[in-house]
């Protein structure tokens, strides 16, 4: 009924609006059911993507993750103000670095003496609980970085120190001596500064400006302790 009343009205107003001229002519009888298919192109593309990662070879999967890790290593080695580390965070890199650092800090001989170097578990606990404490500290101070992003940045920035550990172990093969110690000290100091600068470049922006020093100091302490562990390593 409303349509019947509207149609003369529509015809009258049809001339200024030719777009809706044919609207009154459309009528759907009750016999034909309204049905059809609605396809959303995005969804089908996503489905294709899922099935392709499920069916791809293991080598492809591993290479993709390794490439992501390698790209982040590059970001750490040449720290710029980029969001790549923060946007797609992952914890593979920190795990690889932490395990390799802890393995390299093992003494080769077991003396059984009380004052030995750190055990594997001790290094692991220091790195992960240190990173968690720093993250909680920066969140409590009002930073707007997420928990895992911060863990990711702190873990990846251990890369220079792991490289320093490798160099120290190689230098120690040459035999102890004061020159040996000077080389190791220089390398560790340079890598420590690199780690602190790299992590500060990523983390400092997330803090309110009057608390930046409060959030950066624990990072400094964290890398200082790891550098100390590396410097005092004796095979």
């Amino acid at each position: 009924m409303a349509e019947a009343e509207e149609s003369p009205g529509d015809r009258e107003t049809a001339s200024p609006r030719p777009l809706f001229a044919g609207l009154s002519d459309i009528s759907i009888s009750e016999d034909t059911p309204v049905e059809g298919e609605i396809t959303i192109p995005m969804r089908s593309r996503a489905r294709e993507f899922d099935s392709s990662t499920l069916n791809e070879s293991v080598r492809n999967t591993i290479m993709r993750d390794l490439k992501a890790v390698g790209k982040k290593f590059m970001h750490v080695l040449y720290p710029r103000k980029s969001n790549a580390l923060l946007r797609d965070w992952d914890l593979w890199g920190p795990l690889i670095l932490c395990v390799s650092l802890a393995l390299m800090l093992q003494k080769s001989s077991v003396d059984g003496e009380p004052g030995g170097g750190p055990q594997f578990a001790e290094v692991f606990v220091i790195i992960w609980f240190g990173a968690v404490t720093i993250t909680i500290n920066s969140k409590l101070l009002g930073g707007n970085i997420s928990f895992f992003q911060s863990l990711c940045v702190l873990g990846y920035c251990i890369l220079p120190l792991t490289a320093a550990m490798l160099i120290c172990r190689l230098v120690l093969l040459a035999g102890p001596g004061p020159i040996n110690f000077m080389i190791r000290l220089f390398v560790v100091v340079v890598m420590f500064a690199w780690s602190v600068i790299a992590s500060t470049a990523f983390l400092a922006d997330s803090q309110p400006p009057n608390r930046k020093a409060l959030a950066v100091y624990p990072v400094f302490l964290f890398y200082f302790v790891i550098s100390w562990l590396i410097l005092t390593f004796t095979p």
Partner: protein
Amino acid sequence: MAAAEELAFHEFEEATNLLTETPDAVTTIRSDQLASREHVSVVVGSSVSYGAEELQEEGDKTALLQEEKPQPGFWTFDYYQSFFDVDTAQVLDRIKGSLLPRPGHNFVQHHLRNRPDLYGPFWICATLAFVLAVTGNLTLVLAQRQDPSIHYSPQFHKVTVAGITIYCYAWLVPLALWGFLRWRQGMREHMGPYSFLQTVCVYGYSLFIFIPTVVLWLIPVQWLQWLFGALALTLSAAGLVFTLWPVVQEDTRPVATALLSTVVLLHALLALGCKMYFFQPLPLQHVVPASQGTSLSPNNQLLLTPTWSIATS
């Protein structure tokens, strides 16, 4: 309206009077909160002369709401975030205040101002624990340089020992002190006891002076080490005593002296224990073979000769 203008003028005076009367009021810079408090105080305090009973009820309601602002529960993150509400400048100011205690200069009143933070105590304790372990290890390195027969090892277990000692001291002793002061609360009229967080803050910031002292303990001259230790201990203990004195002076004489001397004694024990454990002059088991060598520096010889004579007597 003239009444409203008069109201505005009186509001200001009443607000300042209220602020001086209640020293527990938190000094925030939120002007809108202050304004609403002024408004509330005037409406409730004055008589109902402008005839709006609902206005007074509203004032009562807002007064209640203001005082009973729901504290976030201790399981929420915001509760702990309120303890880290400090800026860099404030932390540095509190550290400076702990380094230079003056009689009558109460750390809690002048520096904390009812906004105790947990950042200072936590990170000062962490820094002190690591610095103790690192410098203790460094003294071993320096001792080995002079006497190559000493076996050097990284001594990583000292980090654990240092951490546990410092953290237990900085958190359990304030707990005991706070509990004791609350127990004796009845004897006091003027000042209420400090809250637990304020006590933790005082102890935490008082430990800051030990960080440069521990670094200075690297110098292997014995009398200089004792001098630095005594200096740090007096400054730190003086800070604690001057802070606790206003709270304790209204108590009975014996209790007050006992409390203050216990506080100073515990502090001295901590300093002495750290010096003895982390900065041993030489590992004692290597004294006897080392004394037979001739390549000793004068420092070590001075230390070694008494023990060697005891061993041979």
